Structures are given as structure tokens and as C-alpha cells.
């Protein structure tokens, strides 16, 4: 069986290094080796590579590639078949932009889940104690549940399931879950609904051995998910994505990627 690998694309920027502490912990949890791929459009100086090698965690390897960054990263991913790609959302300062062009291209074409790390968290140490899964009640978003649950289990982390309700209609997707329209007595209804929501999720993915907590909010889904992630001190968010990027698709995902302060793992639904 081939060695489990996590691919960490870097460029020569300081911001890109924000992915390293996250990748290091995920590597430990997944028992996967880190494969650092340094990509630039010109060949880097030896001194620069030596400096990078001194920065990366022990046991990881550094591979320097030259070419168009996204194409090189995807080529490397095709060769290495990594379990995850962990990279920074953007390495150049572009205020208000969701993702840099490299991260966008990688996300859209990656053969595996991508963990996107906001550059603002710098190189400070990272721990995985709270994993947050936003769940709009649809079977599609349930695709994020299994990877999130498996990660939480391996990390002995808490799994937070966030459901945002609002004035919009219930999802049309068959089998979707919603909040109850009638709450006869909140002291009974909410605990019962919470138990049932989690039980229904357990039909998709075993959760019995995990510490699972439901959190409910109402309002704009992206804003509420970002707020909940901050309030609950989530270390990682796991989001399911249908794979369509062009407007008006993926609005919630784009808003979350722009505003969230924690790393986000995006998995294909």
C-alpha cells in the first residue's frame, strides 16, 4: 500500500507559509507524509529552497517546480494522489477577493479535498479540537459529514453540526431536513429535534463514538456560519461543494471562504 501523502503547495511568499502548521497537524492526524511543492514561474534560487527546507516540518520533502502554478500543483497531485491538498487561499493581498486564481484553479480541478487556509493566521501553531460542519439539511451537504467525522474521530475533536434556518423555503432536494415549523414547547421540542437531527445524520455516517453538538442559527447562511465558527472557536470547517463555481453558483461557499478566519476543508458532494 502506498504511503499516505498530503500535498502542500507553496510559493515564495510569506503568506503561503500559513498552510504549514495546518498541514503538519493534519499530517499527524492522517498519518500522512507532507509533500511540499514549491512552484514558481522562474526557477528559485538554491538559497531560497534551502531556507524553505529549514522551515518545513521534519520528515517532509520539498519538490521545486517551475511553471504555471495551478497546472504544476494539479500535475503533482495527479502523480502523488494525495489524501488532501493544504494551501493558502491567496498569497497576494487582494482585499475582498474570495480566492486567489491559483487556489481557485486547484479547488476546481483537484482530485481530492482541499484545505484552504486564510493567510492571516500566519505560521502560528494550529490544533484541531473543534470541527464544524455546516449542514443545510440536504443530502448534498451531508457529503461533508463523513470526512469531518473521520477527522474529528482521529483527532479526538468535537464535531459541531451547524444548521442555519431562515425565511427561505425548505430545500427542494428530496430527503432534506429542516427545523420544525411548530415548536409547541421549546423546553421539549429543541432537545428532541437536536437528537433527531443527529440520529438522522447517523444514518449517513456513524457518529455514536463522537462528541457531536448541534448548533442552530437563523439568517444569512454564510454570515451565520462564519459567526458560529468564530463563536464556537472552530479550528476547521468542512464544507460540501457541488463543484460548480461560476456565478450564481457556490455563493455561500465563496462568502464563507472570503470571511472565515479558520481553515476550510472543501469536499466534492
Amino acid at each position, binding site marked *: 500500500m502506498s504511503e499516505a501523502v498530503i500535498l502542500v503547495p507553496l510559493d515564495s511568499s510569506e503568506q503561503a507559509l500559513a498552510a504549514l502548521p495546518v498541514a503538519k497537524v493534519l499530517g499527524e492526524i492522517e498519518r500522512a507524509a507532507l509533500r511540499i511543492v514549491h512552484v514558481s514561474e522562474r526557477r528559485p534560487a538554491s538559497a531560497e529552497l534551502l531556507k524553505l527546507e529549514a522551515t518545513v516540518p521534519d520528515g517532509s520533502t520539498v519538490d521545486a517546480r517551475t511553471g504555471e502554478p495551478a497546472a504544476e500543483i494539479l500535475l503533482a497531485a495527479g502523480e502523488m494522489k494525495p489524501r488532501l491538498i493544504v494551501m493558502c487561499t491567496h498569497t497576494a493581498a487582494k482585499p475582498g477577493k474570495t480566492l486567489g486564481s491559483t487556489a481557485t484553479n486547484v479547488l476546481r480541478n483537484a482530485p481530492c479535498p482541499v484545505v484552504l487556509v486564510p493567510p492571516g493566521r500566519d505560521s502560528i501553531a494550529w490544533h484541531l479540537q473543534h470541527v464544524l460542519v455546516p449542514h443545510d439539511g440536504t443530502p448534498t451537504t451531508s457529503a461533508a459529514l463523513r470526512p469531518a467525522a473521520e477527522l474529528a474521530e482521529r483527532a479526538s475533536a468535537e464535531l459541531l453540526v451547524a444548521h442555519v*434556518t431562515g425565511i427561505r423555503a*425548505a430545500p427542494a432536494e428530496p430527503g432534506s431536513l*429542516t427545523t420544525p415549523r411548530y*415548536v409547541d414547547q421549546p423546553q421539549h421540542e429543541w432537545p428532541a429535534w437536536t437528537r*433527531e437531527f443527529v440520529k438522522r445524520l447517523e444514518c449517513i455516517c456513524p457518529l455514536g463514538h463522537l462528541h457531536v453538538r448541534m448548533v442552530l442559527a437563523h439568517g444569512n447562511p454564510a454570515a451565520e456560519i462564519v459567526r458560529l465558527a468564530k463563536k464556537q472557536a472552530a479550528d476547521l470547517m468542512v464544507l460540501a461543494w457541488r463543484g460548480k463555481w461560476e456565478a450564481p453558483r457556490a455563493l455561500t461557499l465563496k462568502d464563507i471562504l472570503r470571511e472565515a478566519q479558520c481553515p476550510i476543508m472543501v469536499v466534492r458532494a
Partner: protein
Amino acid sequence: MLRLASLADRHLLVQCATITPENYSGSVSIDAALTGTVTQVTGSGTTVAMAVARRVVDSAGHCMSSTEVVVGQLSLEVRLGETYRLDRVVAVHTSRDTDEPREMAGRQVKHAIEDVNGVIAEHREAWLTRWKASDLRIEGDAAAQRALRFAIYHLSSASNPEDERVSIGARGLSGTAYKGHVFWDTDIFLLPFFILTYPEAARALVMYRYYTLAGARAKAARLGYRGALYAWESADTGEEMTPPFVVSPDGGIVRILTGEQEQHISADVAFGVWKYWEATGDEGFLVNAGAEILIETARFWASRAELEEDGRYHIRGVIGPDEYHEKVDDNAYTNGLAQWNLEVGEEVARLVAERWPEQWRALSRRLGLEAEEPRRWLQVARELYTGFDEQTGLFEQFRGYFGLEDIDLAPFAQRTAPMDVLLGRERIQRAKIIKQPDVVMLVHLLWERLPPEVRKANFEYYEPRCGHGSSLSPAIHALVAARLGDAALAERYFREAAEIDLSDNMGNAAGGVHVGALGGLWQATVFGFAGLRFTDEGPEHRPNLPPSWRSLSMRFQWRGRWHELALPESGAERRITGG
């Protein structure tokens, strides 16, 4: 597979499964997870004993395995193509019924496993009797028919005429949500079904309120009042079971005030008791139990209402059926029902004193009731503030309600969460949006006391402001809309009510059926669409059927006689049968 909880003998549970080997002869192992006889002591000290027995019968009807109470796995030699039936019987007895629950359960299960077919036949017979009494037939609307039979099935399953110390919890016997606690749902939403189709079960439900009077008296005394204030959430003793707070799903701690402030429950209990008496004329119940409930609840209201400087009595700091607004003064529903309760308390005191003087002397001595006390109740009732405005014909739901913010509910029409979640607790308290019928509920219950224009004006004012945050809400709106002659609106609300349990789209099906909403659905049909009502002369009907309903037929019992009602009006008939 057949699985039943016997309606004929509520101590018995039966499972039958058949097996036919299609490509195999040999050994089969059946893990029936048997436990023999087990006992468990509940938190309240009741011992529950369960005894289990099983047997396997071959296609010729011969028993292949022991019928003894057994534990563990069962191995059988089976032959290709032959059918085998596994019967399993469970008997449940508690220390509430017998001093020897374990022995009783063991003896009964041994007997029952020998005659499983007999147990099944008796169960079937019991259900036939129930359906004969309670069925409601609709032609022209299969969905409505299905919803009503679903309601009747769950209502009938949840009742037990043989046990007066239990009632029906908010989710019936179909789920564990609400912990089996008993609310006003039973007295106001369920009881009419039982009174008219299963009076024996209705009697057990009102007797439950008699057996829990001690808890109601203790609650009133604890809060500084006289008489009986029933628990908002009641269990076996009648003590208040409402938790003081809940952790909401957003992590906030929410104070729960219904246990202290939702005091209309006492008038609701009295209302149910009086309706039972009116419909059955059950003198034994009235003299030995009902009168005491009516007197003690009237006494509570007389001590609860306070005479103020304006010369009127007021009831301050309560929650009405609309639970979005807490600690309100002079809630129209509470005051309206309290007024009714005070008057009926006086009436029953007079009635018992005149017709059963000896029992009356004993009762009034036991309750320490002075001769003039019932007359004072009438005075409090007369001077009780009701919030009624002669000019508009409207009841103000509570003091200050008309000054609250009016919020248009139309933009929220597609919502999947209740309005208090969307707007937040503080905002909803400052708005006119209500959780469920409050004044409209008063109109429904005291229909005959209010002039037609007042019923209409209040429905038209409050209906658009109702957020329907309670499952009890749509059915009552259907009922009142139908009685007011708006069949289209009534039908729309009827369908909303019917969907609550039959459409698994609320994320709360596992907790159990909304049994109060099911009772409301039945009432919407019988009192709304069929327009059944009762006067001193007896039952009448003023139907207003939905256009698609070709016919509605049902039976009901009134003062010991069965009546048959067949609508529509053109072919309407009401036959009295039996005695």
C-alpha cells in the same frame, strides 16, 4: 410480521414473524433477545415487571419449541419450503396494579403464549368495537379521510378507560418527546373526541385530573393562592414538571416561565370536566369528583384576581395560549375562561347542594367552603376585566397588545422555522405576532356566549396576525373559519393541520405524533365542517362542508344515546339508536 399492543388487554404485547426457507433445509438460529422476566424500579418507585415467552409453530400448527419463559438464542431444524411462525408474547405489570407484578406477568405470559391466536382475535375485536363507535367517513377527499382515520387511530390507542391515574401525553404513545407530560392539550383538544365517541375513556381522563388535585392545590398554595392551580406539565402526582430553563440549540439559556405563568390550565381542566358532565350526565362523577375540581378551580380564580382602584378585578402576570408574550396583564383568554370557571363553580355548588344535599354537606365541610363563598365568585366574575371593546367588538388579547408593532407575516410565508426563532424572543414580545389562537380560542370555546359579529370581528383581526408557531394552531383556525362560513380558508387550515404528522417534513417525526393537533383536526371536522353543537334541546348541526366532500358521516354519543349523523344537509339525517 405482525406486531401489536393489545387493545383488549393492555398488559399484552405480541410479535409474530413467519419464516419460509426457500433454498435450505437445516439449522436456523433465532436471536430473539429474550430476557425471561425482568423487573425495573422507576424513579417514582413503581416496579415494572416484563415477562417474555416464545414458541415456534410449524405449518401443521404443531409447537416445535418450549413455551416456557426462556432466555437467549433458539435453534431450530427447518425443512425447505415449509413455513414456521415465531410467536413472542410480552406481559407487563406494575406495582401500581398488583403487589406481585413479577408473578402476575409470569403467569399471564404463560397463559397467553398458549393461545396467541386468541389474543390476536380479542385485539381485533376490540379495535372493531372502537372503529364502530369512532369512525368518521368522508367521501370525495381521500387525503382528509386518511388524516382523520390516522387521528382517530392514535387518539384511540393512547386512551385507557381502565386507568384513571394516567392521562395522554403531548405525543401520545408514539414517541418519547415531551416525556409523556400532560398539558392543556388533553382537556381542550383531546377530550371532546372521547366525550362523544368513547365516554369511558373520557371519564378516565377527567378522573386523572381528580387524582392530581392534591398537586394542583399544593402549587396554588406555593404561589400564595387558594384552591387548585394545575401543573402546566403534569405527570403522575400532579406536581409541576415544567423545567425552569432550557439550553437552546444556539447555546443560549432560555428561562421557561410557562410552569409559573400559564395558569389558564386550571380553567381548561374545569372546562373539560364541565363538558364531560354536560354530555354524559354522569352524576356519580359530578358528585364524587367533578364538583370538587370545579369548586377548587373557581376558588383559585377568586383568590388570583385582584380588585383594583378602577373597581374591576384583574389577573396580572400570566401567559395566555399565545406563549410569545410572557408576563402579560389581563390576558383575554385567561380572564374569559376564569370568568366562565367562576360562574360554573357557583352553578355546580348550587346544583349539588339542591340535588345531593347530604353529599354537598360532606364536600363543603371537607373543603371548608363557607355558604357565601360561591356567591362571591359570581361577584368576581361580574367585575372581572375582559378587555372587550364595545365599539369595535374586539377583545384586546392583553393590556397593551393593540399598541404593539404590527409586522406583516407575508414575507415569512415560506419560512421553515417559527417566528420567535426568526425574530428573536425580545422582538416578538414587542410585536403583535401571536403563536397560536388566543382570543380566537376564546371565541371557539365560548362560542354560544358571543354574538356573531363579535366572533367574526375577532377572527378577522387575529387570524392574519397568527404566526402558527404551535401545532395546535391550524386546526382551531380551520374550525372557527368553518363555523364562520369561510369553507375555503377552513379547508386550507385543515390541510395544514393534517400535514403535521403525515408529511415527514418538520424534522421531528421521531418524537411522536402531535396528539393535540390530531384532536384538533377531529374537532375541526366535527364542530367546524359538520357544525355539530349542543343545546338544552340536544344536538344540532349546521354544516359547512368543503366543496370536494361529497359526504360526511359519523356516530356520537350524547347523554347515553348514540346518534348517527349523515351529511350533506340535503340528505341530512340524525338517527338516535340504542339506549
